[in-house]
């Protein structure tokens, strides 16, 4: 009986599409996002190999070449100390990306842990954590960051201001905690969590091994999106003179101080750093948007 049926089935051969490489798939489905990724990679390379890429030393003061307009020697001109703006923009990528990534990673990781714990335990733990997050959410990002900077002051360790990272990373925590909590709430109800509990696993193990892998998609999406926010916030704080300080090349810093004084005569002093900030944030936003559409269209930021 079974033999005859298999015989009568027409021999249709399905053309099995070759599984596309995931990166190639992303590029084809999300061309705008891929462009963003390309810009991000270029900026990362510039930041990493700034010594090789930059034509001049960004701190090199040259009083013979003050406030020069863009030329073959100085593609983006020079500032009021005769420092090469292109080199400062390139080194600025290092500052922006380092601060952006570290602050976003720290904020998203802490936020994710808080969100998972909140969802997993539920009950009064959940209520207290959510109230606390509500309180943090009632402060505009920059207001919270400014208050932290004012209270903590500076604390530079290994060239990076830890308190600046805290100021930029803290406002991210409640937002991430909220999104991760809602994702984790759905996962908590799944049978394998019950199974893990029945098997006697510790809470820590269940959260880290059974819930964490399932919230990776929203985590990655938010990580990228908040790098953009962190870069913008760092630029704003530096612009106000409360973030990265001279002589470290940072985009926001390049728009403040003497630049604010001279930019009406020497517009190149502000045009290029501003474009750099916008481009970086633009690229991360494009990539983040595309990543969301690609990984998990349901996540709402």
């Amino acid at each position, binding site marked *: 009986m079974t033999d005859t049926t298999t015989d009568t089935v027409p021999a249709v051969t399905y053309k099995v599409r070759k599984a596309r490489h995931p990166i190639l798939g992303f590029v084809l489905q999300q061309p705008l996002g891929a462009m963003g990724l390309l810009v991000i990679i270029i900026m990362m390379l510039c930041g990493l190999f700034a010594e090789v890429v930059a034509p001049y030393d960004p701190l090199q003061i040259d009083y013979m070449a003050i406030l020069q307009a863009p030329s073959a020697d100085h593609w983006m001109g020079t500032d009021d100390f005769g420092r090469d703006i292109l080199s400062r923009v390139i080194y600025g990528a290092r500052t922006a990306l380092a601060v952006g990534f570290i602050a976003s990673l720290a904020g998203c990781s802490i936020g994710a842990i808080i969100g998972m714990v909140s969802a997993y335990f539920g009950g009064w733990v959940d209520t207290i954590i959510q109230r606390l997050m509500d*309180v943090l959410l009632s*402060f*505009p990002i*920059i207001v919270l960051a*400014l208050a932290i900077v004012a209270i903590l002051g500076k604390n530079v360790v290994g060239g990076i201001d830890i308190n600046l990272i805290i100021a930029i990373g803290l406002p991210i925590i409640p937002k991430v905690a909220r999104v991760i909590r809602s994702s984790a709430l759905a996962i908590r109800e799944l049978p394998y969590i019950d199974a893990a509990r029945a098997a006697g696993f510790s809470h820590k193990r269940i959260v880290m091994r059974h819930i964490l892998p399932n919230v990776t998609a929203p985590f990655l999406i938010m990580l990228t999106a908040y790098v953009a926010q962190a870069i913008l916030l760092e630029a704003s704080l530096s612009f*106000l003179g409360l973030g990265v300080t001279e002589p470290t090349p940072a985009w926001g810093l390049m728009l403040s101080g003497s630049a604010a004084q001279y930019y009406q005569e020497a517009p190149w002093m502000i045009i290029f750093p*501003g474009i750099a900030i916008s481009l970086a944030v*633009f690229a991360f936003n494009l990539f983040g948007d595309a990543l969301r559409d690609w990984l998990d269209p349901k996540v709402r930021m």
Partner: protein
Amino acid sequence: MLAYTIRRILLMVPTLLGVAILVFLMLRLMPGDIVETMLREGGGNVPAHVIEQERVRLGLDKPIHIQFISWFGGILQGDFGASMWTGKPVLHEIGSRLELSLQIALMATFLAVLIALPLGTLAAIFKNTIVDHVIRVISIAGLAIPSFWLGMVIILLLLTFYGWIPPLTFTSFFEDPWRNLSQLIWPAMAVGYRYSAVATRMARSSILEVMQEDYIRTARAKGVYERLVVARHGMRNALLPVITVIGLEFAFLIGGLVVTEQVFNLNGIGRLFVQATTRGDYTMIQGLVLLVAVTFIMVNFLIDMLYAALDPRIRYK
């Protein structure tokens, strides 16, 4: 509606209390002693007994919960303390700068709504066409371009093309509306661009979501013109999330103003905040942070009320 309002007000209490506690703790968690910082401002050595006297005068020798209650009691009576820099009451300093910042915020909101609603609707109607892509790029750019830089570029453009820069001293709208507007429209534009970008994106996704509802299909099936379907059935129902975003962003505008006021040399709330931060004027920071947070919670509350008024389903949940 009354029951809903009461429930919503009760829900607000723990958040407000939490904000108050956090703002109160801000100064107590600060490394170093606030009194020493205050007294040593002028430099030189301050004898220990003077510091002790000042501590007693400020009530810092009492247990922390007593301190909180007296501080909070003061806040409730409108006493935010005196600025450590100018010595004037914090509320007075804030009040004298509020008009300017509030006007920019309102103008930016107006601009944002004016731009966002048509753009968002267009993007939704022409989803995935060139129109949508262009609008998307415009709005993502709005999220990326820092408002302070945009402000500088606006000044540069005005200078290059008209040889003119906005007046630097503030004139009240009621004294000289033309002069007032010619000064404040530019910062409002610089801040409003980002604002409109956020609202445009929200309007687009919200309209797209509504257009998939059954009643839209019903409206189309009974032969209503597409334009009317979008305007009457679509936009109307898509407006709620857009109102939320506009309200929340309004509360967050102070963030945009902090940097933009610096560029346009305006003496508003944002500037006050930056000055307080650089000078270490902690009572002022405390007052400003508290005020902004309370504004935010209030706006949130008003949005919820508006929701409930517009959509009866919410009240009964």
